[in-house]
């Protein structure tokens, strides 16, 4: 059993607290992604789990055992670093077999396990090369190979793909997913890229300023973001978020424009309340060019002016001016639109989100 649990975990550097008592339970064989903007404490948290960073308060347990003061080598973990951290003076095979050599395993066992890992990752022909002779993607694979060979209880990934170009990143993302399906270990994966988190993880932990904002499946954090921050962070392009005041069953936006108050929220807000209205680009589209949720009476049309379009082939992102700002919508089966053209945009309010303007919490 390789569960990982964090209990009120705290990290302080001098008097500055970086991680503020976070708690999290990772179940056996789960793929968890820690995601958040830089400086949110996700890498520090990972390094505390790895044992590379001293724990200022709280507990880390791996497989139920308290590991707070255990050195990294006794935690039976593997880590893939953002920088890959391959040993430049060793060949690929030596890099991958290093942990087994240190553990004093016999030569033939090391060779066998390195060969197995090399087969999984397609590294066979590269075993005798040195890291400097490899491309970025190959180095990345060697770093993963080194992690696999140990057969650890827990894999830790620290932004492993952020040094790769966009195409290779997508490719390696798929490989990591396949790898997890094959080795079935517990994985804790740190990234600032929400797409990586969404595509890879069983559950996503969204962190901000040393606190956990939300823990949930990709679907949960996308469909029911717990806060304004999560709503803005998850999803690409990001959710349209705008401050509004509740008045007579309507939402009054910035410059006096109004939208109907979404039906599902009517009971939860009071007149005069300041809220943040959120609508995903998927739920804002030129009439007839989107997938609405099926509640026709919850679709609200507005005649807006297009400011710019971004064609993506199968769809086009449409930026239209409303209530003093640009709103981004997604047009399926795109038709050509010119900037300055007037277009009827449908607001699918059944999918709208409301957050408290003060606390940012979901209403």
């Amino acid at each position: 059993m390789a569960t990982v649990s964090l209990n009120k975990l705290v990290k302080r550097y001098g008097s500055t607290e970086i991680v503020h008592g976070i708690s999290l339970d990772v179940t056996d064989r789960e793929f968890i992604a820690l995601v958040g903007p830089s400086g949110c404490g996700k890498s520090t948290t990972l390094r505390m789990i790895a044992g590379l960073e001293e724990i200022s308060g709280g507990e880390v347990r791996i497989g139920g055992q308290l590991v707070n003061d255990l050195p990294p080598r006794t935690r039976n973990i593997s880590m893939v670093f953002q920088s890959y951290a391959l040993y430049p003076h060793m060949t690929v095979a030596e890099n991958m077999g290093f942990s087994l050599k240190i553990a004093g395993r016999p030569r033939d066992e090391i060779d066998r396990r390195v060969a197995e890992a090399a087969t999984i990752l397609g590294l066979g022909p590269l075993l005798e090369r040195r890291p400097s002779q490899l491309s970025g993607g190959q180095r990345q694979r060697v770093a993963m190979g080194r992690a696999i060979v140990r057969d650890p209880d827990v894999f830790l990934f620290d932004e492993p793909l952020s040094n790769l170009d966009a195409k290779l990143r997508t490719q390696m993302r798929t490989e990591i997913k396949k790898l997890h399906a094959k080795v079935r270990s517990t994985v804790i994966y740190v990234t600032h890229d929400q797409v990586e988190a969404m595509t890879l993880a069983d559950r996503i932990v969204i962190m901000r300023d040393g606190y956990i904002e939300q823990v949930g499946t990709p679907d949960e954090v996308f469909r029911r973001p717990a806060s304004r921050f999560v709503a803005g962070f998850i999803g690409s392009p990001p959710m349209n978020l705008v401050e509004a005041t509740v008045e007579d069953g309507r939402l009054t936006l910035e410059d006096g424009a109004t939208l109907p108050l979404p039906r599902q929220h009517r009971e939860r807000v009071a007149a005069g309340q300041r809220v943040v209205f959120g609508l995903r680009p998927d739920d804002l589209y030129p009439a007839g060019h989107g997938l609405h949720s099926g509640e026709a009476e919850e679709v609200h049309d507005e005649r807006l002016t297009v400011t710019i379009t971004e064609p993506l082939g199968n769809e086009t992102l449409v930026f239209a001016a409303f209530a003093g700002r640009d709103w981004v919508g997604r047009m399926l089966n795109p038709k050509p639109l010119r900037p300055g053209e007037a277009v009827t945009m449908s607001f699918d309010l059944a999918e709208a989100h409301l957050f408290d303007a003060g606390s940012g919490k979901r209403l």
Partner: protein
Amino acid sequence: MNENASHRLRKRLLSAAHTIGLALAMLAICLPGLWIVLSSLRPTVEIMAKPPVWIPEELSFDAYRAMFSGIGRGGIPVIDYFRNSLIVSLTSTAVAVAIGMAGGYAFARFRFRGKTGWFLGLMLTRTVPGIALSLPLFFVYARLGIIDSHFGLILAYVALNVPFTVWLIDGFFRQVPRDLAEAAQIDGCTRWQAFWQVEFPLAGPGIASAAIFAFLTSWNEFALASQLTRSVNSKTLPVGLLDYTAEFTIDWRGMCALAVVMIIPALTLTFIVQKHLVSGLTSGAVKG
């Protein structure tokens, strides 16, 4: 002539001028060394001749023969001096490199109070000319009774070399990414093992350079050694050169011969170690 041809011609002329310039500079650097070798092989008359005799008329190994002939037959205790030089230089180098590794690693990896101050202080000691310290050092050593001993000389040379080795090795450890030692610890190493298995081999070229510099400093040092050594017990080769000066004469040929004997081991060591001075060994460790 078209423009391409003239540019090509200019490029060739420039590269030829470059080669000639380098050859001249090389000659200027090597000439004193060659002159010493040459002077060790010819009679004093020819050495002192004005204008200089460029092409020697006769060459002989008499000076070398005499040097090893023993006292009373024009010889000096060159074997003793050589042994002293070797013991003092090797020991002081080993100690200075060991301290340099520990210190350099600490400065490169750890954060501690007064780090910058310590580092600056170490560097500032380099600004004091060694010879300025020779008199106070002589008094202290005389009181401690370590004049004319290997230990005294080794101590002085270690003090002389440590700031330099710390500074040089610090720079090399800084180039070894921190991630590597961390990866090694995750791979099952203790901090100690991570150092020896990963960081040490990668900083190796720097440590080798520091060792060469420390060795050459100790091997060639004259000013302090001439004060702190008295007899064959501790006199090093550079001090041994003084044996060729008498009250009214200087045996230039003998002195040059001893200088050649001194240069050979230093040159050999440098050749052996420079193979390992391959820089850029860390390339490929991190990033793409």
